[in-house]
């Protein structure tokens, strides 16, 4: 199972070389080409590319993989943390699906369970956490049932993770190129020289000049380190790359560069991406679908266009309108009163009910079922089964609106609530 680095260069196909050249010339992609290709949806193109490129991988998919099964299907996943003070239901019945070549964004505030969901997929959880229910089906194989030893086959080779703080995730006393070569050696059993050659090729793919590979992490800038992390995640040619807040600590311009890189890699390598972030704009920018989580549950899931243009769940609506938008009116930010519930004893009905403007009697008693309307899945009593699923817009009494004078707050403004 040895790979000639020249083969590798050939296999990382010409599109990549082109992309690299393009990157070097400071020029964003041609607008004409963009308009022409935009006629097909991004998702279609991505899936097509993924199918083409799947043959590129030097090794077979797992033997137990079921043909025709979706790439990743998470069903009713429950991950609880055990604390002295009680059990925290961090992830409490989350389901979603990820197709080949698709990018899914998982958004929510801190503590909503988005990172725990991601870590549960490959089971790299803290010692006090446990998956208490549900399935994680990768190509039809349930990873939840696998032992620690069996899981090693899937970690990094099938699902890899780009962690948040690149400075903390990289080994400070090891050269970058060696760190990238390590998983290739360890997981794929490649000889050292081949692994190194592949690592250098990967560095170039992510836009780090080859010779910088000999650098130690502290010698690289934040953006470069994040690129190195991405190269490492690509080391074993995984089917799925999970980005946990991949751009959070970066400057706007560097963030734009990294997002462009991810987009390009997805297109050229046919990767499937899961982006975990609290930053809605990152999801709007790079993903095909978005999953909005609140207090360990799915609030709403659907195609990007639906979620961002016609958000149905009151939480999604609030979240979107509390995000500053440079292309919209100034000062139309909204406040979501209150704070997320304590997950040791979550409210019995809808978990968002205590903060929801639309809360009805049923909301605090019955857990809203997840109902699918076309391309969207939403868990809210405003959209009962059998309804048409038309968007119900939440009024915005709390907005610091453009019509509201900033200097003199209007008298009808409710007093600011202090999170308990």
């Amino acid at each position, binding site marked *: 199972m040895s790979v000639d680095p020249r083969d590798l260069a050939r296999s990382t196909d010409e599109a990549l070389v082109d992309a690299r050249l393009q990157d070097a010339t400071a020029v964003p992609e041609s607008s004409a080409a963009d308009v022409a290709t935009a006629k097909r949806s991004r998702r279609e193109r991505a899936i097509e590319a993924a199918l083409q490129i799947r043959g590129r991988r030097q090794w077979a998919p797992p033997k137990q993989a079921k043909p025709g099964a979706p790439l990743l299907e998470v069903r009713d996943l429950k991950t609880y943390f055990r604390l002295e003070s009680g059990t925290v239901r961090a992830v409490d019945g989350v389901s979603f699906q990820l197709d080949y070549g698709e990018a899914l964004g998982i958004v929510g505030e801190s503590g909503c369970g988005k990172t725990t969901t991601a870590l549960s997929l490959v089971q790299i959880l803290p010692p006090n956490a446990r998956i208490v229910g549900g399935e994680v089906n990768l190509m039809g194989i349930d990873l939840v049932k696998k032992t620690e030893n069996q899981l090693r086959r899937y970690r990094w080779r099938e699902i890899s993770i780009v962690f948040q703080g690149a400075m903390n995730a990289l080994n400070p006393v090891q050269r970058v190129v060696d760190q990238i070569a390590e998983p290739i050696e360890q997981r794929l059993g490649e000889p050292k020289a081949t692994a190194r050659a592949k690592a250098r090729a990967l560095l170039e793919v992510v836009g780090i000049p080859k010779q910088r590979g000999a650098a130690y992490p502290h010698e690289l800038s934040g953006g470069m380190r994040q690129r190195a992390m991405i190269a490492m995640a690509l080391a074993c040619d995984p089917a799925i790359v999970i980005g946990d807040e991949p751009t959070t600590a970066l400057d706007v311009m560097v963030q734009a560069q990294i997002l462009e890189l991810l987009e390009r890699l997805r297109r050229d390598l046919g990767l499937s991406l899961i982006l975990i972030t609290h930053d809605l704009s990152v999801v709007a920018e790079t993903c095909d679908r978005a999953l909005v989580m609140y207090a360990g549950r799915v609030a709403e899931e659907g195609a990007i266009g639906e979620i961002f243009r016609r958000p149905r769940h009151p939480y999604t609506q609030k979240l979107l309108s509390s995000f500053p938008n440079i292309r919209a009116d100034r000062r139309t*930010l909204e406040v979501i009163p209150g704070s997320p519930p304590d997950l040791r004893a979550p409210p019995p009905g809808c978990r968002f009910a205590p903060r929801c403007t639309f809360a009805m009697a049923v909301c605090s008693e019955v857990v809203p079922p997840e109902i699918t309307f076309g391309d969207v899945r939403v868990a809210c009593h405003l959209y009962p089964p059998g309804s048409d699923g038309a968007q119900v817009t939440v009024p915005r009494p709390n907005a610091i609106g453009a019509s509201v004078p900033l200097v003199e707050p209007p008298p009808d403004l409710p007093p600011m609530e202090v*999170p308990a």
Partner: protein
Amino acid sequence: MSDGGLAKTADGTGSPHDVLYRLQGMKVHFAVRGGFLDTILRRSRGVIRAVDGIDLELRRGEVLALVGESGSGKTTTGRVIVKLTPQTDGRLTFDGKDVTDLWGTTALRGYRRRIQLIFQDPYETLNPKQSINDFVMEPLVVNDIGAPRDRQAATFAALEAAGLRPASDFAFRFPHELSGGQRQRVVIAGALVMDPEVIVADEPVSMLDVSIRTELLRLMLDLRAERGLTYLFITHDLSLAWVIADRIAVMYLGKIMEIGPAEQVIRSPHNPYTQALVSVSPTPEPPTPGERAKRTILVGETPDAAHVPPGCRFHPRCPYAFDRCRVEEPPLFDVGGGQSAACWLAEGGRSLPVLPHRIQEPVPSPAATAIGAELPA
């Protein structure tokens, strides 16, 4: 209501603007520390030009956002204003008085009462072993302000003003018992207890979740309305500046590239750097292919401040750079409406060819061709 706060102060006091704080030609250079031998021989290994000559006015009652990427010198500028970092050169005027050479704890006592700083990370600002009450009261004790009973009253008042109501519920807790948003409110209370006129806020909300962020921005704006505070709001996030600021100053590598009313700087940037920043600023809307194509993603990263490029410091990354940019540094040109931009293309108030995607298909613009711009093919 686009320019509410600013219009009010400007009209209320009549023109010209009531300048509360002025920086003139302010520079902060740090010597690069060499090895032991360098120290003995007193030789210098070069200078880091963190802030390299800026003029800035902070007007009474306004929110001025200082926007820039890391390494732009925005934090250093804030630290000079609160007198935590000495400037290398330049003049500082506060409320009509020259404070350039005001140093020392005693001399700065009155000054520090009037200008307060809010740091970015509420987790690190607060002492985990100090109660909220002690943290907020500390500046009063240190500066020997008021009798003990008055101090307690002032502390509670500050906590309530920062939205921690009732104060007695929060005062005797410790930082670990509070959420991130509440901690940042405590930090704000610590600044308010001195009843300052100016607050320098260095990335006050960047550690917080979106929904909490909005509450704090609103608190800051409410406090301005109640107390007539003036803010220098330091951030790397142009969208945040857009939401909160009356005026925006964009910094790059120690210089101000553009300054003006928020609406104008965002809607019609006259400096290519500002233009690029606006074009990549993330929005919670999926971009259309057209928007994607219009994006100007600059290549590379901000050079380090020890090696500032000659001429315009932005020229190596500028899509419009031409010969003059490589040799001569542009001053800030007035482009009208209180907006100025440091770019040769803005000379004489000309506007920038606002067609970023033009980088691919050069459309000769009268302004650019007149001065012989070399457009990348």
